[in-house]
């Protein structure tokens, strides 16, 4: 029994989500291999080889793998799939994009967003926006799985000493072409992996007012997040959205400012260790999950809190 973890990376840096997926693989048992499919991605393979618990790294390096196109990456995974009992992807935008394509080609079901491993064939996953947890068993020969990163503590990035083996890259499918990318620039920690998250909702009222959260986030070393209402209203960029259809976070501290707490939002943050809610409506559902709630005007409370910290 050997598990293959598909690395998430940008051709230079191994993304932290990979280390959470390796942790899930370790729980399944057996050897853990990591596949790095990219272009000029040797550095990523070396980083993966240094991760604790990784036995071997496969590196497929070719220009057609540079941009993570689903058609090419799925074909690359399929080229080595027959050696593995489990194939794990982090449940990130790229993992979710590729994993079902691999599963369908292997004619197996895919298990999405697992948060727990009960045995090599039985897994837990949230359904209905996290309002229920399903325990599912797979009888398929190969288990294709995406791993909810907040469900597993990352393995150490250092301490491993895996070998890196270069494998032949698959040919370009020619079906799709990468045109371009707009990356939102930020000096703050990455939302999905941040220790502290400060999120704003519709209560902020405008993109201008959203800046009131900056000093608080700076002081806490926090990533900024947003509710769907705030994103739809244009107060914050799309990739800040926390919730069922956005990012799933589980930081040490989550500060919800001007967020009412719709089920879809709670699905993205209710596994946070400590939740603080600041809202002027004492009846807002967010107070139902908050460890500490403060009823008050955020425009007064937030600056006051920032200076008190």
């Amino acid at each position, binding site marked *: 029994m050997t598990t293959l973890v598909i690395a998430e990376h940008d051709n230079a840096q191994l993304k932290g989500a990979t280390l959470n997926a390796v942790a899930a693989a370790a729980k399944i048992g057996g050897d853990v291999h990591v596949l790095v499919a990219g272009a000029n991605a040797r550095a990523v393979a070396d980083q993966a080889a240094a991760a604790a618990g990784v036995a071997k790294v496969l590196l497929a390096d070719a220009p057609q793998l540079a*941009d993570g196109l*689903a058609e090419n990456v799925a074909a690359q995974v399929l080229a080595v799939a027959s050696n593995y009992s489990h194939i794990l992807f982090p449940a990130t*935008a790229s993992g979710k*994009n590729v994993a*079902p*394509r*691999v*599963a*369908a080609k292997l004619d197996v*079901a*895919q*298990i*999405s967003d697992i948060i727990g491993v009960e045995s090599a064939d039985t897994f837990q996953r*949230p*359904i*209905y926006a*996290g*309002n*229920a*947890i*399903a*325990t599912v*068993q*797979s*009888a398929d020969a190969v288990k294709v799985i995406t791993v909810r990163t907040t469900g597993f503590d990352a393995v150490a990035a250092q301490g491993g000493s895996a070998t890196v083996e270069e494998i032949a890259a698959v040919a370009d*499918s020619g*079906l*799709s*072409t*990468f*045109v*371009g*990318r*707009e*990356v*939102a620039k930020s000096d703050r920690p990455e939302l999905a992996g941040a220790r502290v998250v400060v999120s704003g909702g519709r209560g902020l009222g405008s993109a201008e007012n959203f800046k009131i959260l900056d000093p608080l986030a700076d002081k*806490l070393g926090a990533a900024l997040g947003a509710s769907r209402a705030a*994103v*739809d209203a244009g107060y914050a*960029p*799309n990739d800040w959205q926390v919730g*069922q259809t956005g*990012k799933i976070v589980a930081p*040490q*501290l989550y500060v919800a400012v001007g967020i009412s707490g719709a089920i*879809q939002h709670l699905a993205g943050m*209710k596994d946070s*260790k*400590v*939740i*603080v809610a600041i809202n002027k409506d*004492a009846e807002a559902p967010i107070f139902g*999950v*908050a*460890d*500490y709630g*403060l009823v*008050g005007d955020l425009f007064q409370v937030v600056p*006051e*809190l920032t200076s008190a910290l």
Partner: protein
Amino acid sequence: MKVLVPVKRVVDYNVKVRVKSDQTGVDIANVKMSMNPFDEIAVEEATRLKEKGTVAEVVAVSCGVAQCQETLRTAMAIGADRGVLVQTDAELQPLAVAKLLKALVDKEQPQLVILGKQAIDDDANQTGQMLAALLDWPQATFASKVELADGKVTVTREVDGGLETLTLKLPAIVTTDLRLNEPRYVTLPNIMKAKKKQLDTVTPEELGVDAAPRLKTLKVSEPPARKAGIKVADVAALVDKLKNEAKVV
């Protein structure tokens, strides 16, 4: 060109579901059902492409129980030209749905299939990608912008950290993200017109598809409840709690 839009009947997004006490599933008896929100966006996008003149026909498809007809009627009230129901009372998982859709694609020969990125009941986010794999078509998931021109579709996708743009050769699969469009409200006259549109019914057997579930659900349980929190009086009390009780700052 023809566009196929699969739609799913799910528990309405405003309903907070309850787990059954015997842990066999969630209780959906007498619960309001609606079209999956991402699928509404898919139907809206197909309809807009038709209104622009780039698409000639929009076919809505649903797989499941007889009541999915209502979901198809909603799709037709938004703008789909006709509907196809693959009727079965059996449990359908994404791989089975992808196989049923492949059989319909083989029959209908659309150039584009637009699906929602995920259904809000099973939260799987698989069917579109699986259909693309079974057909060997290119895929663009989580679309926030779709443009059709010259036998190609250019799609802007929402990815972690921003946006990326791909060009796919047709035929292709697109799955919708929330910000692709704002679905229109269906009007009464359009609901009346939708009742007259063609709705065909087939079965998985007629399509020659084995739709048996692959994953066995052993149990469905409540998520662990959070212990009740407290309301603090002011900022000073909040800071004190965070520093001395929770020790997170």
